[in-house]
């Protein structure tokens, strides 16, 4: 599992946010477009791409995209 690919997969879940705005250090909860629906899209992507089931606490606990990457990586 590779960080840049994960960042791209996360960015794909956003419609209006430019992909360049989403990097490893982005605090994704603070993005204007972030919502509970985007959270579900990210969880769904993680399930599809990595076969990992994130918990609500995982999503709430991760600050940056890289934090989320590390959580997913630890569950593979």
């Amino acid at each position, binding site marked *: 599992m590779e960080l840049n690919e994960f960042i791209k997969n996360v960015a794909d879940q956003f419609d209006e946010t430019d992909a360049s705005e989403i990097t490893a250090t982005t605090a994704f909860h603070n993005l204007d477009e972030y919502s*509970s*629906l985007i959270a*579900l899209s990210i969880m769904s992507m993680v*399930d599809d791409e990595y076969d990992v089931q994130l*918990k*609500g606490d995982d*999503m*709430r606990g991760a600050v940056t995209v890289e934090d989320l990457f590390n959580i997913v990586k630890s569950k593979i």
Partner: protein
Amino acid sequence: MSYLNIKKVAIRGVSVCVPREIEEEIESPTFESKKAAADFIASTGIERHRIAPKGVTASDLGVAAAEKLIADLGWDKSTIDCLLFATQTPDYILPATSCIMQDRLGLSNECYTLDISLGCSGWVYGMSVVCSLISANGFRRGILICGDTLSRTNSRRDKTSWPLFSDATSVTAVEFDENAKEIYFNFGTDGSGWKAIYIPEGGYRNLFNERSLDYEQIDPGVCKNKLHGIMDGMDVFSFSISRAPKSLKKLAEYYSLDLQNTDYLLLHQANRIIDDKIASKLKIDLNKVPYSLKDFGNTSGASIPMTMVNNIREGLSTRHLKLVGCGFGVGLSWGSVYFETDKICCPNLIEY
């Protein structure tokens, strides 16, 4: 390995009873604005839900649905040897509501009765029990009553749960039949996720106490007391989109079924996002996945029979159908079932 293969049991009929009172989500004071209500409808697919009047329980709806189905089947009540009630909203903490229902329905004193405490997976589990009992070759006929009044377990001031759930109770009638097609099941449980959906107080871990009824503002639009259900929507989502399709795939693989070859996939009606995702993971044509969500929301364990009565009643009454279903939720608990029906008795939706 949690598979069951039931022989010599035929499904003869299914009925559902709902209360008359309808709440339209778009007008619901539970949402802070029309926009919030519209967003809820767009994402969940739920436009309205039913609320049982004060004092009416899931068993009241169940008795009405059972009386109608038994009458339409023309069954002599003395031939019904078992009654099961799958619910999380029983009449009393004790006795088991199925005992009370035996009397109310006028069934024999030699009737076997049992309550099953499960929610969204309750119909699939209940079917596995009633079918196993009949298949054991002693009981002639059985009825599974399955449903809830979740309006009693959710706060009207909780926009994340109140609009989702709808009250309904279903009845499914089964009978011993040497020539019946086999019924297949797959089951699973993940108790580590029990806190994804639970009611904190009022049981025997945390007794009802003088603070149980105090409302607490948890988030904007989410205000509830300790007898109301708590749900972690993200946990439920993640669990559902993973476990449900896996269970259906396991069932298909183990019994060499082609899911594409069934007439309908009957999913527990969780919400539109979850169910669409499950169907797409299974690559099943959406025309084969009926939804009763729009008018009846999430009807807990009654949701699979609810969809049968609401969406495919004509097919059930007039044709032979191959059906596959999956219930998943509180527990966390899930189960999948493959069954066939042949011109079964399926009365119009009953209103209480």
